[in-house]
């Protein structure tokens, strides 16, 4: 025993003498040995090829005049293909699941004498919500993710991070956040998962929290619809298309600006205590493996995210049907809530229907507009749609506009909804994913409540200033 203690104390004393550098020295000697061995046993073809393709591509994609245009063109192309390409399969799936299968199931349930409320709960509530989420979410994701993965596999995306790093360094973030943010335009949950590529703890949490500021797939249709009705409606007809498209792009850019501002704020405040270590490897280019990419992006990203979304959408469907159908002395729960929230909603330039829709449609941004329409019809006692608690959408924008105008919506409501759609809590799938990725209640809470607080404050001030100017 005495001997052991003696050895230990000698060892401790020696540690003071060795100093702190020995870790470095050990690594240095490992590398030295390794390169000596490899020098002996590895035969290298000494002559370098005259034309290095990698360097050539690098010079173009990081070039002063070519870098940014290539980046914007590629990303714009990916988004354009996603939005345009998703319309057809979306309409197709929607036709099967919503227009055909839904009435069929309902008739079947009626024909075997199932009580109406069970049919309503299961078919109009749970089934319809799940069907809606699948038809809106699946096609864009199935197009966007494989294209994005192909760019990644080819080796282009690390170069985007390389080019964008200067901007992100200034706000205390990592250049790779440009990638996770782009991924967030497809789906925030997938964007949050994608932050795994950032291996520095502080920068990763920043990327996770700010991912929600990327306007996701589920919110693009809302933005486009509202912009067409309210922004397009305020300008002459020949400018309507440009104006509404411009408004949507402005909101998306506003999201990017917010993500930078919030990144900066977070790195200066709550995230001061987290470690930060920058590293970025620029792998060699290689031809993308098409089939493998298609498979992994479909299984790992699309199906995975879709499954989580459906799991959350089903209970939401039940709740949506219940609040619209359970009455207390002749008035539904939804109406009670909407009337209660209306005075508060007035201050932030929204209305009770929108607030309530955002509360019960937390599982998926895709069902916000159908829920808003259903609730507006419910509260204004219109005879449109398919009955209480049954979400619906209309084929014509003009008919949708009629419902919203009847619900008391103004241009201010429209703009505020666009702002609030950008700045509100992430959907429950994303919240759950954030918890899974960070394993921390604190970061999950911040990611959830920071955007909603920002949304309320910005809508409030925007509304007051608008009313002040408009008189």
């Amino acid at each position, binding site marked *: 025993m005495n001997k052991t203690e003696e050895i230990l104390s000698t060892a*401790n004393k020696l*540690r*003071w003498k060795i*100093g*702190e550098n020995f870790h*470095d020295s050990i*690594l*240095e000697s490992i*590398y*030295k040995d390794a390169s000596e061995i490899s020098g002996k046993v590895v035969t290298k073809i000494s002559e370098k090829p005259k034309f290095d393709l990698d*360097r050539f591509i*690098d010079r173009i994609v*990081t*070039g*002063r005049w070519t*870098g*940014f245009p290539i980046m914007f063109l590629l990303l714009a192309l990916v988004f354009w293909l996603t939005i345009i390409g998703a319309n057809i399969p979306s309409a197709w799936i929607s036709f099967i699941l919503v227009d055909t299968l839904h009435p069929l199931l309902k008739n079947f349930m009626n024909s075997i004498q199932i009580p109406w409320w069970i049919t309503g709960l299961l078919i109009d509530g749970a089934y319809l919500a799940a069907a809606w989420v699948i038809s809106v979410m699946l096609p864009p994701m199935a197009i966007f993710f494989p294209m994005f993965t192909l760019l990644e596999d080819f080796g282009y995306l690390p170069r985007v991070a*390389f*080019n964008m*790093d*200067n*901007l992100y*360094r200034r706000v205390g973030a990592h*250049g790779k956040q440009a990638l996770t943010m782009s991924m967030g335009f497809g789906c925030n949950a997938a964007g949050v998962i994608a932050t795994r590529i950032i291996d*520095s703890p*502080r920068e990763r949490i920043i990327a996770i929290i700010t991912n929600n500021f990327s306007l996701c797939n589920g919110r693009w249709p809302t933005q486009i619809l509202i912009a067409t009705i309210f922004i397009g409606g305020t300008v002459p007809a020949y400018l309507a298309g440009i104006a509404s498209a411009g408004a949507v792009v402005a909101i998306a850019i506003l999201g990017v600006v917010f993500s930078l501002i919030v990144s900066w704020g977070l*790195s200066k*405040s709550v*995230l*001061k*205590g*987290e*470690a*930060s*270590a*920058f*590293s*970025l*490897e*620029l*792998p*060699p280019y290689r031809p993308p493996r098409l089939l493998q990419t298609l498979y992994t992006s479909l299984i790992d990203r699309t199906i995975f995210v879709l499954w989580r979304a459906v799991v959350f959408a089903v209970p939401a469907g039940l709740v949506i049907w219940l609040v619209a159908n359970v009455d207390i002395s002749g008035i539904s729960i939804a109406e009670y809530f909407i009337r209660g929230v209306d005075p508060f909603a007035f*201050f932030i330039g929204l209305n009770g229907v929108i607030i309530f829709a955002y509360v019960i449609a937390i599982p998926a941004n895709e069902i916000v507009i159908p829920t808003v329409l259903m609730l507006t019809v419910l509260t204004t006692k219109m005879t449109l749609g398919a009955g209480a608690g049954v979400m619906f959408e209309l084929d014509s924008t003009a008919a949708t506009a009629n419902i919203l105008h009847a619900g008391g919506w103004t241009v201010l409501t429209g703009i505020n909804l666009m702002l609030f759609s950008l700045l509100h809590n992430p959907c429950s799938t994303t919240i759950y994913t954030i918890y899974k990725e960070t394993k921390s209640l604190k970061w999950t809470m911040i990611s959830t409540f920071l955007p909603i607080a920002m949304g309320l*404050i910005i809508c*409030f*001030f925007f*509304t*007051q*200033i608008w*009313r*002040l100017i408009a008189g």
Partner: protein
Amino acid sequence: MNPLTSLIAGIFSIIVLLIIFLPEVGIITRWKRMRKDRSRERIEDALKHLYDCEYKSVDCSLNSISGSLSLSGEKTAQVISSLEAMNLITSHENKISLTPEGRSYALRIIRIHRLWERHLADNTSIQETDWHSVAEQKEHETSREEADRLAASLGNPLIDPHGDPIPSITGEIPEREGITLNNLENGIFAAIIHIEDEPREVYAQLSAMGLYPGMQIYLLENSKDKIRFEADGEECLLAPILASNITVVPISEKEQVKEKFQLLSSLKMNQAAMIVGISKAMRGQQRRRLLDFGVVPGTIVRTQLESLSGDPTGYEIRGATIALRRNQSDLIYIKQVD
């Protein structure tokens, strides 16, 4: 309600919320700070100060304690008497000294303080100038067991980021060595072993000059009003009063590094150089990451790619292209090769 009224009410409530909840200066933080029992903190800080005097072999008086704790003479006398009552110090005439119990208590607090500083430097992105004040808070809130766990997770470090030795669990600490920079003679090579972290303003100035423990310097001129020296190849100028905050040890002939090092950031496009070292200012995870990439002395690097805005830069290191930011390549030393 009138929009103007709500606008003003909105701005007003945001200001009120900020005043209440703002970290560090908000009412809640101030209130918590006020309510906190400071007597333990004072006792521990006084012990630390006494130990510091002992370590530097200078005499310690009531005045110096009250100065270091920024307390009134009356309150300091209270602290001293409670320390005496706890049998942690003894006082003879005007000289106060630690009892063995007091010394081991002081060493424990110093250990916790320096472990925290090491942790803050290696594992967080908290600013260098804030390490000391954060550790000053944490040292009173950390139990012995927590400190041991912290030490284990840091790999039982020996010195804190300022170059001070960290006492071991049993309270062992090596003898103080070295001389202050203002006592170094002309034409001598030396290594910085310690930079005093108090007062904060002086430390901020020294760290802004890029000085760090482990840095090699060469004294060019030591006169009454200025001290001129070369640090990692760059000439620095200090007032003697500032230089007294730096402790150095002269280094032997064979360790001496006479040539000027270049920084990796100064390497031009498509040029190659050999790495000779990584600055001590590169710490923790960041340093390990670089070592993992093969950034060790002897490795050849080549500047390969410049990003759109000039920062970061892509370097060819052991067959891979690694992008490094300028604040990283500023801390890597290279030597030209043919």
